[in-house]
């Protein structure tokens, strides 16, 4: 057994320790040193990221920390991803104008979150995991709360849902502890022998899904996304919590339990509903950040579908999608932060035409939008492709129901593209609505640009070089070895062919029609825009006009109306039900002394009766 000093000097210990120390140093610096706070955080997270990549490259267990920490294929790649995102977000925050008022606490909690998350990913002991998991809920709460008084309701809701799921995690851990007699995560796989095992598995799954934000425990993500600072959302709900939640789900389904067909069915149903329901909500949003948050929920569905497929390919697809989603979704949220800073709003009604003023932001947003919509050859396509294959592979385990899951996944993908067409149009391409002045908008500074462009580059890289780069080094070792694909997709060749086609098209355009532009009516895909039914060239199409028909179509209209009343929000429904009982109890406590005395006497009689038995 090594001493504490040895553990702290080891890269694995340092990955956890350095960010924690960084946060402490930042917290102790004077409040007025706002710039320095940021620099300390950037430096600390950069060191942590480098260490994490070193651990990733070296692999292997740390001697002496065996029962507590585990470095295996799964944890080391999530570790590297977590630390890297921490660094990128810290860098972005350095340039983001909304951060300085709360700089000291913000950077401290950011660094602490990185350290705790690294610990949670490496934890092999369930109690240690539970503690770190709970701490992450705490830092999540504080970081959302720091975004300002407006965010306090969202902070509360997030922590109730995430913290509440931690309670379930506690219950699950306790059951596993008593069933196996050990708190190791890499112990023997627990077979489904009785109701208790199912209960434990469902507790773990609920905690993982709440963290990742899957339906029906998703509703904190949109609220948080809308109200919290953009880098907070880009870091926590969009990347870190997805990584952690799906990491836990993968670890639980692979190393601790062996889910049977029934449990896989539950997972896949959750995944399919999440994909479709959330993307339908995203279609009709008017706020950029809220829209992106619904997509953050929707994408979780793919990961859960992949893991729920129960095949190695599905698991690999789910994990790859988790990584890809973290990349493009945080890029999108950072874009939203950049737009918010320069345009002063994220309301799609009041944005438009920013492509010229903010080219780097537009390029990032375009790349990430195409990636999330699953357009080849970007990374989102590849991982969705793997998830589809996983679903097809799962056929036979539970009858023909896999067709439903596949259809849901594909419809979700199409609707995602539709939704991002709206985003790109409304924010960057269309003319701004009357009465809004965005002429002052400029590109953001380098500290914000660098992380955005880096993430966009990763979107391309992980798509084009999917097999040699991320899959071979990270995903397949994490998913437990090489898994042959059942479909065919050579991303390199395809990219080359697409590029050739694109160049050919450009040539054709230059030869045939250059300079002979023709004016015609705006194509609005058959939508009825504005007051007049006839689409005309003069009609301005703002992004919010998109998909009105969907919103007004029955039965979708009723469903949207119900969603507007929060009938699908577990948090709000739970609150209403709870307060029904609370009111009844409160009516009983009227403050009348004789009533209370009657209770005492009745209680005594019951006691006597019960004890005399």
């Amino acid at each position, binding site marked *: 057994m090594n001493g504490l000093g040895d553990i702290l000097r080891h890269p694995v210990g340092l990955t956890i320790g350095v960010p924690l120390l960084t946060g402490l140093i930042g917290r102790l610096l004077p409040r007025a040193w706002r710039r320095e706070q940021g620099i300390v955080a950037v430096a600390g997270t950069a060191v942590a990221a480098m260490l994490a990549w070193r651990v990733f490259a070296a692999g292997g267990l740390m001697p002496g920390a065996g029962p507590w920490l585990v470095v295996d294929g799964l944890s080391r790649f999530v570790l590297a991803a977590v630390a890297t995102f921490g660094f990128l977000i810290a860098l972005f925050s350095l340039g983001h104008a909304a951060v300085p008022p709360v700089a000291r606490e913000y950077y401290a909690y950011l660094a602490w979150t990185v350290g705790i998350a690294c610990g949670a990913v490496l934890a092999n002991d369930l109690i240690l995991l539970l503690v770190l998991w709970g701490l992450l809920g705490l830092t999540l709460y504080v970081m959302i709360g720091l975004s300002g*008084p407006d965010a306090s309701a969202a902070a*509360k809701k997030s922590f109730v849902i995430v913290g509440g799921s931690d*309670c379930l995690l*506690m219950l699950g851990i306790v*059951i596993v502890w008593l069933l196996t007699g050990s708190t190791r995560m890499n112990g023997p796989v627990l077979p489904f022998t009785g109701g208790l095992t199912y209960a434990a598995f469902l507790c773990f799954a609920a905690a993982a899904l709440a963290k990742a934000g899957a339906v029906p425990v998703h509703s904190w993500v949109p609220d948080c996304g809308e109200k919290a600072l953009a880098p907070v959302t880009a870091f926590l709900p969009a990347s870190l919590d997805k990584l952690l939640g799906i990491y836990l789900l993968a670890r639980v389904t692979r190393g601790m339990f062996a889910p049977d067909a029934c449990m896989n069915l539950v997972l896949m149903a959750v995944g399919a509903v999440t994909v479709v329901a959330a993307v339908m909500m995203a279609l009709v949003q008017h706020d950029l950040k809220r829209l992106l948050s619904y997509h953050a929920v929707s994408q979780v569905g793919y990961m859960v579908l992949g893991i729920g497929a129960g095949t190695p390919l599905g698991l690999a697809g789910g994990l790859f999608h988790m990584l890809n989603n973290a990349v493009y979704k945080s890029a999108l949220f950072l874009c939203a932060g950049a737009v918010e800073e320069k345009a002063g709003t994220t309301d799609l009604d009041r944005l438009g035409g920013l492509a010229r003023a903010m080219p780097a932001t537009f390029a990032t947003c375009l790349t990430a939008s195409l990636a999330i919509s699953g357009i080849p050859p970007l990374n989102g396509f590849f991982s969705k492709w793997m998830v589809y294959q996983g679903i097809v592979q799962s056929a036979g385990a539970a009858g023909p129901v896999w067709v439903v899951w596949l259809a849901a996944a594909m419809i979700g993908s199409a609707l995602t593209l539709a939704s991002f067409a709206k985003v790109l149009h409304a924010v960057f391409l269309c003319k701004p609505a009357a009465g809004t002045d965005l002429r002052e908008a400029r590109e953001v500074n380098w500290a914000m640009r660098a992380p955005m462009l880096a993430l966009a580059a990763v979107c391309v890289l992980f798509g084009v070089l999917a097999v040699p780069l991320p899959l071979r080094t990270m995903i397949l070792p994490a998913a437990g070895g090489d898994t042959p694909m059942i479909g065919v997709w050579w991303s390199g060749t395809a990219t080359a062919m697409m590029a050739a086609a694109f160049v050919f098209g450009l040539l054709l355009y230059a030869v045939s029609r250059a300079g002979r532009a023709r004016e015609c009516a705006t194509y609005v895909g058959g939508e009825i825009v504005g007051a007049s039914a006839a689409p005309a060239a003069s009609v301005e199409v703002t992004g919010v006009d998109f998909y009105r028909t969907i919103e007004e179509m029955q039965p979708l209209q009723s469903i949207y109306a119900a969603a507007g009343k929060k009938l699908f929000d577990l948090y709000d429904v739970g609150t209403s039900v709870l307060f029904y009982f609370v009111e009844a109890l*409160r009516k009983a406590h009227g403050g009348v002394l004789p009533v209370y005395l009657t209770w*005492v006497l009745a209680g*005594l009689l019951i006691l006597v009766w019960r004890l005399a038995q």
Partner: protein
Amino acid sequence: MDNLTPMFVVIPLAAGFVIPMVSRRLRAASDVFGVLVMSALAVMAAAGARRGGVYAVGDWVSPQGIPLGIEMRLDGLAALLLIAVNAIGLAAVVFSVDYMRRYTSKLRYYSLFMFMVAGMNGVVLSGDFFNLFVFMEIAAIASYALVGFGCGHEELEASFKYLVLGSVASAFILIGVAIVYNMTGTLNMAHVATRLAGQPLGRPMVLALALFLCGFGLKAALVPFHAWLPDAHPSAPAPVSAMLSGVVIKALGIYVMARLLFNVFGAGAAALAVLRGMGALSMVAGVMLAIGQWDMKRLFAYHSISQIGYVALALGLGTPLGIAGGLFHMLNHSIFKSLLFLTAGAVEYATGTRDLKRLGGLRARMPVTAGTSFVASMSIAGIPPFNGFWSKLIIVLACVQAGRHGLALAAVAVSLLTLASFLKVQRYAFFEAAKGGTEHVREAPPLMALAMVLLALLCAGTSLLALTGIASPALIDRAAQALQAGVFGLP
């Protein structure tokens, strides 16, 4: 140490009389004296934690059968309670120095406070029924007076209700004592326990047990005997609320229940089931009543019912793990709940209100209060790394281990609702934007802040008990062993 045992009662009792006498001229003397007395008691309690023994007051020998003599017994459980009572008492007194300036008669306040502490220490140390009753009445009567100390309309009404219900409970307890004496011919708990050991309880003793559970259940504010608490605890001055919710309901209520049930009446299945049932009911009803409250202290008060429910539930499991978890939670609750009441007091001191709808923005204006309140809220909600997390973990573990899965689920669900209602407090008082009229708000005076910071440190510090407790017999283990020893016997 044996010779110091009665000092836990003698010192505060004497101080209760001496403080008003010596401080009539010099106002500051009462503050200094009060803090000194409580410091001394806290140090003595900490030092005495590892000792134990029986002290026969006046050296009266009490041979078998002759009900003479007064015994004081200091075992692991009593030591745990002494530490809680006197440490929380110290924090409350330090807090009072500035806080109680708003009230007219600080001397009477200190006097009553000392009587309350003396009564509680006496209850905890008593080795016989009659002394237990007398000390309980000393503490209870002092607390009736302290609840009504503000002499406003609401305070007096609350005090009156507390007085009536408390007297009913005391009457029940006295009848129970009479029955016990009648049936066994002795009031010494150890002797009663030896007489009762090894045979089923007769009908009169069952009635006595029911009367005790009802009477002390009322002092502990377990459902359905809880109705006085949500009025009484918020009405008292903040440091007294901290004492009432922090330690009084435990020393006078849950401690005595546990002592009688485990060490005297021999923890039968029916009695444990009753304790579990009352605990589960309190746990659920308390939190549901709390979550709808907008008065900060009233919300905290309902949570006391809920948290005491956890303790009763865990003790009612009757397993070693359950007992340890329950006692640990009792200690933790005394720390974080008294801290919560102190922060509520600080908020009221600074803003003049404790209505959550009218508060807001205090995070920036009162950083110490906000920080300590956050720590306490996270502790009670069972968020790591604070102490409440560990005791809840042990309780849930004990429930599952005992095969009570429904109770484990209830404990987990109540934990969620507790979190939700404390996030409500955090949101409306600290995170939300400030409402109008809070421009003048400033942080609480240094001594109040000191008391809060000390308790907040304890919230984090007692977590270590859980970590070290696994490896070595510590405070909680010794207390749990005292209960598991069965017959109230010698350490």
